[in-house]
């Protein structure tokens, strides 16, 4: 009997280890496959390229994951990126670089806090509120920018391609955001409160957690990170097209976060796994382009990966 129990515990542990290791294993397998098909894939130069290409996505995905762990969602991030780009493009000639950056981050924070107020304090549906914001902010961006905005100050666009300590500045910003996220989740009450809210909002309130304030802060962080990602993107492309900047980004963020194993219902999650999820998406995109896979096939493969990841997550939850 005890032997049987031991066996079942062993098999559970093995199963749990397998599902927990599924994402790193998928990354390793894909890396080897792409390397086999296109040897340039595994060069340091290419991996640095990938890190730059996923920098904006990662910058939003980290605070977004924390928000989702609290059982809330923000679907307005793509338009927030677009609006930030436009606000920056309009402000550079009048305010200079530093004041523009501060203004854009403040706008992102303010919009995030407003979303948080509507969801956290007024208990409105996060999906409805942020879908509304998605449309509103995109409209606002286009209204503010009837003409294209491009050719920004060189000192600003340097952020998009320059290096510091041998690493691209965009990569360093992304890693800083990840580090802050990990610190918040591991070392601060906010991290514990976030998970508690995600598990049971009512219970969290009853034990004295300031649920409304926490939710507002989390939305504020997402808004600010989207504004930062907007700045990073326009520094990279040296242009702020109001119609296309950040379009569909909310889906990419959701994909990455769900790949990282944060459930839509919240209550649990790991930022390192989310980071791996973002990396997997970046790697997929990079490898498929290197192999010159047609777009239609790329879309199907990416979709398939997401479905497989969702399946693994179900397995993990059941064994959990």
């Amino acid at each position, binding site marked *: 009997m005890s032997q049987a129990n031991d066996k079942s515990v062993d098999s559970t542990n093995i199963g749990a280890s397998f599902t927990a290791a599924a994402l790193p294993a998928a990354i390793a397998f894909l890396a080897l496959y792409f390397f086999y098909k296109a040897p340039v894939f595994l060069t340091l130069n*290419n991996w640095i390229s990938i890190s730059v290409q996923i920098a904006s996505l990662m910058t939003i995905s980290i605070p977004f994951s924390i928000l989702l762990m609290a059982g809330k969602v923000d679907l307005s991030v793509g338009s927030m990126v677009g609006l930030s780009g436009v606000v920056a493009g309009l402000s550079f000639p009048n305010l200079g670089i530093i004041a523009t950056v501060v203004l854009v981050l403040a706008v992102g924070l303010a919009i995030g806090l407003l979303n948080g107020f509507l969801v956290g304090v007024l208990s409105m549906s996060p999906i409805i509120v942020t879908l509304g914001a998605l449309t509103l902010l995109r409209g606002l961006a286009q209204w503010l920018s009837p003409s294209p905005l491009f050719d920004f100050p060189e000192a600003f666009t340097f952020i998009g391609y320059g290096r510091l300590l041998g690493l691209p500045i965009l990569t360093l910003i992304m890693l800083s955001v990840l580090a802050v996220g990990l610190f918040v989740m591991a070392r601060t009450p906010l991290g514990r409160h976030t998970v508690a809210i995600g598990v049971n909002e009512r219970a969290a309130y009853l034990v004295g957690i300031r649920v409304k304030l926490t939710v507002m802060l989390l939305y504020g962080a997402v808004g600010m990170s989207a504004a930062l990602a907007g700045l990073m993107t326009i520094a990279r*492309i040296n242009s702020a*097209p*109001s119609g296309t900047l950040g379009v569909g980004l909310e889906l990419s963020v959701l994909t990455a976060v769900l790949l990282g194993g944060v459930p839509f219902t919240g209550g649990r999650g790991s930022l390192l796994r989310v980071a791996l999820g973002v990396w997997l998406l970046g790697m997929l995109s990079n490898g498929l382009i290197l192999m010159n896979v*047609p777009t239609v096939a790329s879309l199907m493969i990416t979709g398939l990966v997401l479905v497989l990841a969702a399946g693994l997550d179900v397995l993990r939850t059941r064994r959990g």
Partner: protein
Amino acid sequence: MISSPYTKTAVAALAYVAALWLNQAAAAENDPSKVTIEEVRAGGKKACESGKKFKIAFSHSVSEAAIVKQVRHFADKRAAELGCVTVLHDNTQGNNLEQQINAVQGWITLGVDAIVVTPIDESALKPFQKQAQAQHIKWLTYLGKMEGSDGFVGFDHAQSGQIIGKAAVDWVKAHKIEHPKALVTTLTGLPSIAPRWTEVEKLFAQAGIEIVAKQDSADQASGLTITETVLKQHPDLSIVIGLNDDAAVGANRAVTIAGISPDKLFIGGQDGSIEGLTAVNQGKAYKASAAILINDLGANVVDLALNAITRNGPSFAYTPTVLASKADQALLDKLIANYSKN
């Protein structure tokens, strides 16, 4: 009176030749590519002489695009010049069919004189075309074609692809590039604009230019990422052709960041957007754009609709596409000047 069989045969032959000539003349008359801008403008001007007021509605499928905003600007400008026309615009974005249908429905209810629409889905719009035409509202299409429409505001994607493809081939020959490699961006979800890249493919195949990568991209960010990645695999890449200027602008950014000498690469775009034209004017890697005469295109939206309403002139026409490059600075300056607010 026809008596001898020889005479009859000769007359019959003459009649046949005359009929053939008349047919060809009629075909030329109905060929939108043969219609001149002057003919289109003359008809539009005549429409306003009657003192009547007209309402023309214009629905583009991606109204968020900078170049579309400019087309609208020139349509409004032409309407203001004529003084007898009001142009209504919708807010269809991202090829959203439902938004477009709602707008068209509203315009039919409003009883406008003409609807000019970029058909996102012809079969879905067909019932609305019938409904509009039954109410004597003229139905014109922009870019895409629909059977039974009263007019067509077009520009030729094949011509665009040919112009930019030929410019790239000429550059390869002039610079004696050995084993030239190209990246071509596409938009496979919109097969109606496929000649923008299929014509390039044909010309490259004839010239022995190898297309090493073909990827969907219609915006700066993806143009940058794709080019950056392809350059890793093919550092000796010599040509990038963008489906539009936005993708090519992204490619140009990738080349700038990578620090590649502008002399080693030909980047070409299509449309003639202000960002693309500005990059061409810098005289670096971005060598050319197949530019639509955007002021004429915007004005054609109004004039061709007026011609369809009043039957004063042709209602089917193409707006010419030209090569914008440093080789013709005057034309490049003129195209850039189109974007200055006036």
